[in-house]
């Protein structure tokens, strides 16, 4: 029986009124509400959802932080954040409705009694707003505070309502700590209640990757080792580490970007079609990719650190001169690897991945490079004139997809040039793509976990990173320098040139 038939039988008036789903009444409790993430991302995202009518009528936000603030002070602070970071013009009516359900409690939650004021405020707010005991807890606190907060809220079981927990990265710093964190959380919450954020998965183009692959009949038949020469995944930033030196010193590019974002992009590129587009089916397929990833040898890995240079015309200092960075630091700000997915579809097809700071430009892309045409029946000066086709998926900026094709240059002879076919997201659809956090918060409120990572995915990702880092321990001198504003260290070029291939330059 279809959904509409069910609606027809129960209440025929509901037929055809599916529309966007709105979440059940609920209260969102943000731990770390006085922090940067709340200000820059969470509140602007909530405001956008409110403006688009996607929040339930009965909705409340309880901010928790250690900083003392009144409700009015918190509201004023958040209003400023929305005005500064929101993507829509500020509308008083939308704000008034959202702010009416917004409260703040100052609490540290480092011992169990500290939770009392939070639960008291939450219960009062729930009664006032009619949120039916449904609670979403958002952990926007530093990793060191995570367990304290989870321990406290793990015991708050609302009578009747459901509860969900949204967890931010970093989800551990190696396999052992990730396992420990998962175990700690899963002693108190069911896996189905936990929503681990990798904000890349909230991006429109990343979701479009599945649509591109599985809703177009022309790609899937050639999406394999027979037709694809190799895949390049790049997450390049031109910015440095800013004021996050202390954090970055203990993290590095491998843990910060490769472990989560790059590996997720790789999994979405390489995975088999799921039987259906449900959270567990998709996540099962991603886990299979992680399990098939060959453990790379040291010769398949490159790590680097930026020195001084020029970025976008401005002179910038090297990593070791950044604030709160050790003068002898060996933290990698660049990471590249050649990886293989050992399965029937991909055996022998390299996936070159790279990420880093202070690179030539900001771009996140997945480039699928197809094999060359097997034979060219034209008299050309060089076979290089006919370049391989590349399907390029732009994740950010300039979200879209482009395909390079070979075309004849108009004229009397046969000259071949590569031309680009571009599908720019903003060009085809509305120019304002929703922010990743809007989609992710909405999905968590709806209880849809498809865009969130599961405990076993996170652990598989860390297992690979641990294997990589173990090589480095045995190779302490392997950190290469690179000039800020370049495309990374020269041995990254050597990694791919050795296979008669080269990195995409732009």
């Amino acid at each position: 029986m279809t959904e509409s038939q069910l609606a027809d039988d129960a209440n025929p008036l509901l037929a055809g009124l599916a529309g966007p789903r709105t979440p059940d009444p609920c209260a969102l409790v943000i731990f770390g509400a006085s922090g940067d993430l709340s200000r820059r991302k969470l509140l602007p995202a909530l405001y956008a959802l409110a403006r688009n009518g996607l929040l339930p009528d009965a909705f409340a936000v309880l901010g928790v932080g250690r900083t003392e603030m009144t409700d009015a002070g918190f509201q004023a602070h958040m209003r400023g954040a929305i005005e500064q970071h929101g993507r829509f013009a500020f509308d008083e009516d939308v704000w008034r409705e959202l702010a009416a359900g917004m409260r703040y409690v100052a609490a540290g939650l480092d011992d169990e009694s500290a939770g009392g004021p939070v639960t008291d405020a939450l219960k009062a707010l729930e009664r006032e707003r009619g949120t039916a005991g449904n609670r979403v807890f958002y952990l926007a606190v530093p990793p060191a505070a995570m367990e304290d907060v989870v321990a406290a809220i793990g015991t708050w079981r609302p009578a009747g309502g459901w509860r969900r927990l949204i967890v931010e990265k970093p989800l551990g710093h190696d396999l052992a700590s990730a396992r420990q964190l998962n175990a700690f959380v899963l002693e108190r919450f069911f896996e189905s209640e936990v929503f681990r954020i990798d904000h890349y998965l909230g991006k429109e183009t990343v979701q479009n990757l599945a649509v591109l692959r599985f809703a177009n009949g022309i790609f899937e038949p050639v999406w394999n080792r027979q037709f694809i020469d190799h895949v390049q995944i790049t997450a390049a930033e031109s910015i440095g580490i800013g004021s996050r030196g202390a954090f970055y010193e203990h993290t590095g590019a491998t843990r910060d970007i490769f472990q989560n974002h790059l590996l997720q992009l790789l999994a979405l590129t390489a995975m088999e079609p799921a039987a259906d587009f449900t959270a567990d089916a998709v996540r099962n397929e991603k886990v299979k990719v992680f399990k098939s990833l060959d453990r790379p040898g040291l010769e398949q890995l490159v790590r680097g650190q930026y020195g001084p240079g020029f970025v976008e015309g401005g002179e910038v200092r090297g990593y070791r001169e950044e604030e709160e960075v050790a003068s002898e630091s060996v933290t990698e700000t660049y990471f590249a690897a050649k990886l293989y997915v050992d399965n029937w579809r991909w055996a022998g097809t390299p996936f070159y991945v790279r990420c880093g700071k202070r690179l030539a430009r900001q771009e996140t892309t997945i480039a699928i490079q197809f094999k060359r045409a097997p034979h060219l029946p034209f008299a050309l000066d060089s076979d290089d004139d006919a370049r391989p086709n590349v399907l390029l998926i732009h994740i950010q900026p300039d979200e879209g997809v482009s395909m390079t094709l070979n075309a004849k240059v108009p004229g009397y002879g046969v000259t071949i040039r590569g031309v680009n076919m571009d599908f720019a997201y903003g060009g085809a659809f509305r120019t304002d793509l929703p922010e990743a956090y809007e989609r992710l918060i909405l999905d968590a409120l709806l209880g849809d976990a498809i865009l969130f990572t599961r405990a076993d995915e996170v652990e598989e990702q860390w297992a690979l990173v641990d294997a990589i880092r173990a090589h480095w321990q045995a190779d302490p001198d392997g950190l290469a320098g690179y000039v800020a504003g370049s495309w990374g260290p020269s041995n990254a070029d050597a990694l791919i040139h050795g296979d008669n291939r080269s990195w995409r330059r732009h």
Partner: protein
Amino acid sequence: MAASLTELHTVAEVRSELSRLRDDTGREGQPVGRTSLLTLVAWVPPQWQEAAGSTLEGLAHEQPSRAILLMPRAEIAAERSHADAPPWSAQVTLRAIDGAAGCVAAEVVTIDLARAAGAASIVLPLVRSDLPVFLRWRGPLPEDAEPFGALLGVADRLIIDSREWAGPGAGYAALRAAFGEVAVSDISWRRLEPWRRAVAEQGRPAGPSVRMAVDGPALEARLLAAWLGSRLRAHVTLEHREDEHVTRVAVDDEPIRQPRRTHRSSSALLSGELNQLNRDPIYEEAACALSSVTI
């Protein structure tokens, strides 16, 4: 914005003017992007021209597309009645819209028609290949077949706004005939959606006949009542008070909770319809049941 300077009289002229403007317009010498979703054909009698202009203006930012505006003009017909006068003339404008993702083009071909017959033969070679064609028909549907029937033959979806109709008379006969041929959207039906949801959420009324009270535009009130009747297979008696928008609804004297304020511009409403590709059987049933509502 770039516009053609001369009047164009053949499809070939229109096409070459479009490509010339596209080459000229663009950001930093780059030609504008050509990603395209649809062709919108709008039938715009003189009294709707101002409204159509402002809707189109807003639409450019939401749905980059090719719009073909057909403007039947009584005075042109008189001027050009002599045999060798061209039956139509066109102007092309191309607006480059700068967005985060680069520059895209919204193309508008405005066609002054000296006579209505044959309009579809101008439209057909100008629609974008392999993309859906939406026909926005301004004002009441005509009783005579031309050019409505032929334009409907080009379209995948007909979009009307029954708020533009004087009454439920003949237009609905043409509309019911269209149901068999193409998918149909009524913008008034979309405006009613929050109210339909609110009525549905109140639960289904009991009994074989229902009383409904609506303050709002006459046809919208009727459509709401017809929807209720067709869904419930019940007879509906409507009590109606004229208002600019639907402001109050009651079912069997039970007031319906006012839905959240949803003011959507005419461009946003039209843009919403341009995202719909399937038939809407619930609407079709409601439109067919209009005459069974007792007022």
